[in-house]
């Protein structure tokens, strides 16, 4: 049940005015907690989240040193919306259960095939095939890592029965093999499970325990399981307060996994996770954009908005030549200046400009749509009946130029939506769908592209640089980046009123204008709401 709007407003006002840090939670009667900070009322609805294919592969890597990345061939595909982790799209199936079983069997075999790796995973040297002490020690440490929480004594005892296989085969590792397989196909491995303890004063709200907090943190910041240090913190009860979470998160952001994760967030959000070019070009573009994200967010800790302002880009000769920039004289990428090319920031990257191509050319409509939906978090309705989106607009003598053809979109009922999209795309038309500069339409040298664009309701611009300046001046992107990060964090695309209130709160906290992305992350994970969940329907 959602709290009444008035009560919520009061709660928010209190939090905002006093900066209250609630009393430490205390257990109430019947296993609930009595005290929760007012902002816990804005806790997001959460449900079981199955590991995405990416998370599965990365978790397998961290758990078993397994770098074969086997998930994609055997697990059901993740739906992109645009993030790959929307749990409301996940449905268990026979192919999931059987895929998980086969993956588990093969991962266990790989892990045990290499004696050195096996020794690291098991953590003790058995003195006999049926060494109970060593097996129990393995189950306890490995089980905590696999399930991301300490196993109960009863759970460990359950797995101890597998020692019979070791005895039967006269091979200690037969039991280890069986245990790894059992762990890897268990829902407690395959899903992130959050239960929590009811907050007695807030019906429907639950406070997460420290292990659940550890997983929330690690899957948000690393896209993988918590490491031993984080599990130790959880075990010691040191992930209970916003300060403790913030401190743990700071440490985690120094890890390479955080870079990959934040790169991936941006790639899924802005749609360049997979690029439709030949491998060399796609790889160079992905590296270019990831490098800019990491430079701004991690290396130089500059305002996130500098992604849109960067006057340099990370390119080797191949990519620089592709863009028509001065090559750095190097086959390995370096930071080079955009100079007077007119390029600036991430929207000048091939990775971004590849988005929304259609009919082997750019689509101003699609690009405009992508800007509205992804960067401004707006909704554009689907085309109405009677619109054939599958064929290009017909070319006549009078409409040989693309912009002339698209004027058809300004007629009648089309205009209301297309005026929101097409003019944005027109402003990017000088850049083709691989980010190369051009002055005329494909195959139509007489069709000179003017590159003038407009974001209806905000202003006019020319080129990616102009669009970026316009978006920053109008402060139009801030709430959307918070919204998108929030969707990624809660694993849900469709947000409800409670979600939106928290997004607004987090945005307000950052203030108008520039902010650092790590501050946004720390504001989210170190906020009073992060340790709570709301039970879903």
């Amino acid at each position, binding site marked *: 049940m959602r709290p009444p709007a008035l009560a919520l407003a009061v709660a928010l006002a209190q939090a905002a005015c006093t900066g209250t840090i609630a009393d430490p939670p205390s257990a109430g009667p019947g296993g609930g907690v009595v005290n929760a900070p007012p902002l816990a009322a804005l806790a997001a609805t959460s449900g*079981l989240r199955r590991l995405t294919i990416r998370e599965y592969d990365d978790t397998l890597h961290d758990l078993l040193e397994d770098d074969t990345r086997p998930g994609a061939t055997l697990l059901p595909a993740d739906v992109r919306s645009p993030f790959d982790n929307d749990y409301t799209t*996940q449905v268990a199936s026979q192919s999931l259960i059987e895929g998980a079983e086969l993956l588990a069997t093969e991962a266990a075999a790989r892990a045990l095939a290499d004696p050195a790796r096996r020794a690291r995973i098991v953590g003790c040297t058995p003195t006999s095939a049926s060494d109970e002490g060593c097996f129990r020690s393995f189950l306890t440490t490995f089980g905590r890592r696999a399930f991301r929480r300490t196993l109960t004594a009863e759970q460990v005892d359950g797995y101890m029965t*597998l020692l019979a296989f070791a005895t039967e085969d006269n091979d200690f590792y037969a039991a280890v093999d069986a245990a790894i397989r059992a762990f890897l196909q268990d829902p*407690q491995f395959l899903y992130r499970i959050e239960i929590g303890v009811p907050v007695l004063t807030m019906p429907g709200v639950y406070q997460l325990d420290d292990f659940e907090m550890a997983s929330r943190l690690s899957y948000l910041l690393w896209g993988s399981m918590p490491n031993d240090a984080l599990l130790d913190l959880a075990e010691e009860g040191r992930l209970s307060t916003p300060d403790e979470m913030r401190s743990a998160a700071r440490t985690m952001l120094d890890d390479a996994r955080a870079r990959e994760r934040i790169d991936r967030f941006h790639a899924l959000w802005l749609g360049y996770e*997979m690029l*439709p070019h030949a491998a060399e070009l796609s790889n160079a573009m992905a590296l270019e954009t990831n490098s800019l994200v990491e430079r701004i967010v991690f290396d130089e800790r500059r305002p996130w908005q500098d992604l849109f302002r960067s006057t340099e880009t990370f390119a080797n000769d191949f990519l620089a030549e592709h863009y028509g920039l001065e090559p750095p004289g190097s086959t390995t990428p370096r930071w080079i200046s955009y100079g007077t090319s007119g390029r600036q920031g991430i929207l000048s990257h091939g990775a971004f400009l590849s988005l929304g191509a259609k009919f*082997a050319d750019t689509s101003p409509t699609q690009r405009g749509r992508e800007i509205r939906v992804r960067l401004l978090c707006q909704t554009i309705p689907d085309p109405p009946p009677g619109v054939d989106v*599958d064929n290009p607009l017909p070319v006549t003598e009078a409409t040989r130029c693309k912009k002339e053809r698209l004027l058809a979109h300004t007629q009648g009922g089309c205009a209301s939506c297309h005026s929101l999209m097409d003019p944005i795309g027109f402003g990017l038309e000088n850049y*083709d769908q691989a980010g190369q500069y051009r002055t005329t339409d494909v195959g139509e040298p007489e069709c000179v592209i003017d590159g003038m664009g407009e974001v209806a309701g905000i202003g006019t611009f020319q080129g990616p640089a102009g669009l970026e300046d316009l978006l920053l001046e109008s402060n139009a992107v801030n709430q959307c980046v918070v919204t998108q990060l929030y969707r990624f964090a809660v694993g849900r695309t469709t947000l409800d009123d409670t979600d939106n209130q928290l997004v607004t709160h987090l945005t307000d906290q950052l203030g108008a204008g520039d902010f650092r992305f790590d501050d946004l992350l720390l504001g989210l994970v170190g906020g009073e709401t992060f340790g709570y969940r709301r039970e*879903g329907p």
Partner: protein
Amino acid sequence: MITRRTFLRGIGGVAVALPALEIMDSPRASRAAADVPGARPCRFVVMQAGVSTGADSTDDDLLVPSATGAGYEIRPALQSLEDLGVAADVSLVSGLKIPWDTGGGIPPGGRSVFYHYNTIGPQVAGTATGTERGGRPRGPTCDQLVADAIAGETPHRLLTYRVQPASYVGRNEIGGDSGCLSWRSNSDGSLDRIEPTVSPRLAFESLFTGFAPADPAEAERARRLLGRRKSILDLVHGNTERLIAKLGTGDRRRMERHFDEIRALETRLDAIPPVVGSCMLPAAPGADPAIGEAIIEYEGAGQPYSTSQGYSNEDLRADVMTDLVAMAFACDLSRVASILLTEWKCYMNMFQLAGYESDMHELTHNPNQPGVTAAVAWHVKQLARLTLKLRDRQDVDGSSLLDHTAIVLLFEGGHGYDPEGDSAVSSHSTENMVALIAGRAGGLRAGQHFIARDMHPANVVISAMNAVGVDGGLGDLDGNVSQLFG
């Protein structure tokens, strides 16, 4: 006997002589026969192709025979029926139509004027689409209804496969509704999509691991490994049960779904024959073909159309999957299968399959009727392959499996008027649709061409359902194509 050559390509093309799969009087088959009193079990397969049968702006048709009746003309799209010698086993129903909203609302089993992904639900579930885009079925699909009726105690109630593993466009994933052909009705009336098995290797493992080899020592080892697998699952089972008890309502419902699938796997493992029967273990297909990347659509830098992207050796994948369906039927591991051959609006590269530097969808709009025909022909070939594989295997009584099977192949669209684009001759049309139906279950007439003018493709599906003993209609629709029962 069917050749194992293609199947073995997956393990490096080594020519290995393998025991042919045969079924005699195994205990399994006898039991299977017994649970449909007085009848041999029937089998049902529905296959879906994500391409229409004609290209834009051309009246050329290279699929539909000019004459009706037996011994129909083998048009170019049907060539594989002749090549594989199964023309006499396959009937073709033409002149079909999915009706659309002409202003008075969406007709029963019909669609809004939106074309793509609006033709699947009407065909496989007989349900009308909504007014919005996106034609997910609005009721249980035919394969589910048939499985409810005829699966009996077979270990695999239903085989749901998808041949095309990736979309080859955009982010390259086929996720969610789009990649599914099968939808199951829950007790509360809601529908769940069934994620198909995409990996041929997993499909094989699912059906045949645990089958004991002939060699006694190997058989003993297999028995032990199966026992371990069950013990491991038993632990997972117990943990999941304890977990469910701790979950809130929504999570509990979702985890129960997961748990149901664990239990179903346990049941299947229990049903694996403990010793070698006459149902032989087929060769493992080896590693799956690599999943192809999304196709480059970019011509600006003079990149030629890719000859390698956009294809995951679907031809081999389909061959393996039809092998597996045939073996599963022969061993009575299953009686029902649904196979999504290609995703609606299929972007699969046609270079490897037929030498066209284009994808299937593009061939329909950048009109190339021979290219579309090649795409249609490839799907027909998969039906032909399965037909042949079933025809050459014996049922419990020594007759051909095909005598008790009905296989339907459906296409995303036909060739004619497109109300969405108001175009007279379009690939975005549900006029002049064609469905192929193979097998002789329930007295189906094979090897014939019928025109069922303006009947619905789902009426052909209903015919197949009726043929395997499932009476009644499908979704909004009733009635079979009577000519098929002559």
